[in-house]
């Protein structure tokens, strides 16, 4: 009985032009999908912190989509900075640049020789429509306004297909980036893992440090077959003017296994859904992450562990440190369906508040409809323990260094779960710079 009708979606003229073009140039099912998504988006109200439980703690009233146009192409210095970052994290990885207007792919020979497909999502939609359709089916066309907008707007994108019993010998590093003031990006990673295959994937969201206001509406879909294995790292280091909305969804068939690690450092505001659907018996998901917020950053993570088959296991651990006036919001749901007997699920959210003015909200929820289960969650919030600080200072460490060591120790506990050692080391370095207090959101780009 809410009085008044919700405000309609603001007009998006810049998008409207490009979506018309995208619908016109698409074929068959994809054209229908884009059209349906656009039609749905045009009638959906934007999420509201007043009306929508998911958005109650994350206010995007100031996000005016009408002010955005499709992103500029990224320039060579940024491309080089991304290459260097990949070299630091996983030098052997194939590199996919998901940035307007076309997806560039480097170092993919070893993988393609093994029968693995790496291509832009656009090309895959032309060449392997049945595979792309199968994967996109894991997300409804218009589950939310941002998903609908993504479905209408995405271009380029990264598509990875690993055939049955093929194990990707090197990681795939997908760099999602954007440029230009008021540029909008629609990052896309779509992965199909056939039975008994395996892959290490890095989704890296980043832009040059700076105040450019940008909008990123991202989707990652992974469909993993029986006994498939995915190690997935998600890095988010957008510049400080970027609004980042993302849905990461992984579907796990029987005995499939996901290890996911997320590091959230950048952006002005983020709302990211980390979802895993345990659809087959014996499926297992281990999700872990570190979050560091400073300045006035607003970093929202919402997780879903959906147990939809028996004997499934999931773990989620999110460690958050917030400083200055940053705000972290964590909400999560362990959802156990009636058939999912012998579910074993746990969520842990630990928050460290480093300043007055920093806030951390935590809402770890459980909905359990099967009885033979072990489910639980733990959440804590606190500040740096004076005893710990005293202990270090008594050994000659300065107060500042002591605090830095303590925060490091706090986050390292989760960082140890990162499935790729090189990426873990890279994230460790990035955290170190954040803790020193002289890191800007986004990455430093040096003109060659």
């Amino acid at each position, binding site marked *: *009985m*809410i009085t008044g009708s919700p405000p309609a979606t603001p007009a998006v003229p810049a998008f409207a032009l490009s979506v018309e073009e995208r619908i016109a140039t698409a074929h068959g099912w994809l054209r229908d999908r884009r059209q349906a998504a656009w039609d749905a988006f045009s009638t959906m109200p934007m999420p509201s912190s007043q009306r929508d*439980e998911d958005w109650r703690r994350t206010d995007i009233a100031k996000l005016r989509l009408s002010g955005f146009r499709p992103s500029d192409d990224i320039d060579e210095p940024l491309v080089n900075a991304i290459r260097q970052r990949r070299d630091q994290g996983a030098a052997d990885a194939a590199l996919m640049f998901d940035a307007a207007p076309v997806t560039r792919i480097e170092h993919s020979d070893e993988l393609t020789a093994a029968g693995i497909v790496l291509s832009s999502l656009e090309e895959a939609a032309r060449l392997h429509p049945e595979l792309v359709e199968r994967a996109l089916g894991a997300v409804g066309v218009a589950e939310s306004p941002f998903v609908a907008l993504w479905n209408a707007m995405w271009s380029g994108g990264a598509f990875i297909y690993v055939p049955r019993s093929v194990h990707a010998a090197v990681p795939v590093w997908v760099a999602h980036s954007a440029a230009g003031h008021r540029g909008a990006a629609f990052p896309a990673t779509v992965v199909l893992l056939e039975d008994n295959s395996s892959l290490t994937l890095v989704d890296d969201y980043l832009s040059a440090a700076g105040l450019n206001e940008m909008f990123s509406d991202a989707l990652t879909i992974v469909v993993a077959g029986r006994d498939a294995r995915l190690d997935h790292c998600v890095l988010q280091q957008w510049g400080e003017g970027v609004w980042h909305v993302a849905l990461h969804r992984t579907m796990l068939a029987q005995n499939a296994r996901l290890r996911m690690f997320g590091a959230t450092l950048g952006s002005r505001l983020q709302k990211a859904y980390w979802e895993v659907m345990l659809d087959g018996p014996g499926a297992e998901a281990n999700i872990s992450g570190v979050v560091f917020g400073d300045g006035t950053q607003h970093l929202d993570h919402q997780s879903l562990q959906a147990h939809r088959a028996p004997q499934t296991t999931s773990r989620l651990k999110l460690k958050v440190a917030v400083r200055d006036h940053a705000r972290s919001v964590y909400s999560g749901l362990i959802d156990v369906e*009636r058939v999912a*007997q012998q579910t074993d699920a746990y969520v842990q959210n630990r*928050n460290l*508040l*480093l*300043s*007055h*003015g*920093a*806030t*951390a*909200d*935590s*809402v*770890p*929820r*459980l*909905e*359990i*409809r*099967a*009885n*033979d*289960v*072990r*489910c*639980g*969650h*733990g*959440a*804590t*919030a*606190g*500040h740096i323990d004076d005893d710990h600080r005293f202990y270090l200072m008594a050994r000659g460490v300065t107060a500042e260094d002591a605090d830095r060591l303590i925060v490091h120790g706090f986050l390292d506990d989760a960082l140890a779960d990162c499935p790729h050692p090189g990426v873990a080391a890279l994230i460790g370095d990035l955290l170190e710079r954040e803790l020193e207090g002289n890191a800007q959101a986004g990455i430093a780009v040096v003109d060659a």
Partner: protein
Amino acid sequence: MTVQAHELSKDYEYGFHDVDISVFRTEKGISPEVVAAISDHKSEPEWMLKFRLKAYEHYLKRPMPTWGADLSGIDFDNIYYYVKPAGEQSRSWDDVPASIKNTFDRLGIPEAERKFLAGVSAQYDSEVVYHNIREDLEKLGVIFCDCDTGLRDHPEIFRKYFGTVIPPNDNKFAALNSAVWSGGSFVYVPAGVKVEVPLQAYFRINSDNMGQFERTLIIAEEGSSVHYIEGCTAPNYSSDSLHSAVVELIAHKGAKIRYTTIQNWSDNVYNLVTKRAIAHENATVEWVDGNLGSKVTMKYPAIYLMGEGAHGEVLSAAFAGPGQHQDAGAKCIHVAAHTTSNIVSRSISKGTGRTSYRGHIKVYPKAHDVRINVRCDALLLDEESQSDTYPYMDVNSPDVTIGHEASVSKVGEDQIFYLTSRGIDENEATALIVNGFFEPFVKELPMEYAVELNRLLALSMEGSVG
């Protein structure tokens, strides 16, 4: 070994009801006329009539809560909002009408009274019919009466605090209660007075389609302490009943209030209650809240820790049998520094029963040196039962230590095995484990409540193991 669901084999133990002997009741449904008629019948002062009518407007404006239990079964037009039973308010047990006495006899009240009770304020339908306070309490200046009497005989204190903790526009059901409230307890404990024995009231609904909207207001002045016990049990009726109470507690500097509830409404009652306490400097408020009965309960006892050094405790236990939804929990709002709170919740679901823990922890920016601990555990007895946990934590101050732990599990097969291997049959073993699970709650209850609770649990658990 399988654990199966069975319907309760016995009839609702207190599901008898007497022939309706009400002498005055409003027509079914609610309107400004009904609200005015209630106020007029009670000869209330003008300000209370205005308060009620204003609350009625809020009630119309506020939306139905959609975030929790399913409330679509409530037919607001098919409810009597005020029923006054026969007979004037009695001071002595001998004056209570025989049929009402009969009801209380079956609930064991006179016996409880004989033992140790300070005062019994037994609510029969909407009006308190029996009322007794031991004289020594009166001498200490303790006021313990129903809220209607409080309004009439102690207007200054009553008006100063009434509706200050839970304003009438707080939520739809608080607004409804504020419009049509009747009965409930008014307790005032003067500074420094420690009430040694628990004050107790039994509530019953006894008229078909009767809403019960009692209102309780407890004020503990500086350095005083009081323990209030509310127990509910209602006869079983075919059509749905609504119980929507408002309970306000004010604990002044250094005071202590404990409020104990065992809710055992019959399984057709919607029990939608707003309970909130204010704890001033160094005060302690404890809610001990047990929910066994009703069709749907939505109740989240709250403590606002407004003064430095205040402490809050919520101890919640819920049992949801077939068809029941216990949506219970706790809220602790830390406004002041050096405040602490502790929440322990235990819930059990059986058959198609569903328990939900819904909690809210909030720490305001200026509240430094705050410590909060939350522990909720749920037990699922069979394949049809359901349990949810919705804890909300908003932390706006860095100088806090907050811990929250939750678990959901079934009765462990190894626990059952351990007991059965020692010659205890499965039924009894399950009952023992369930009793043990509720132990943190039960041990806080006065003896006869603990005994009654264990009896009720044993009854609910009968035949739960196949």
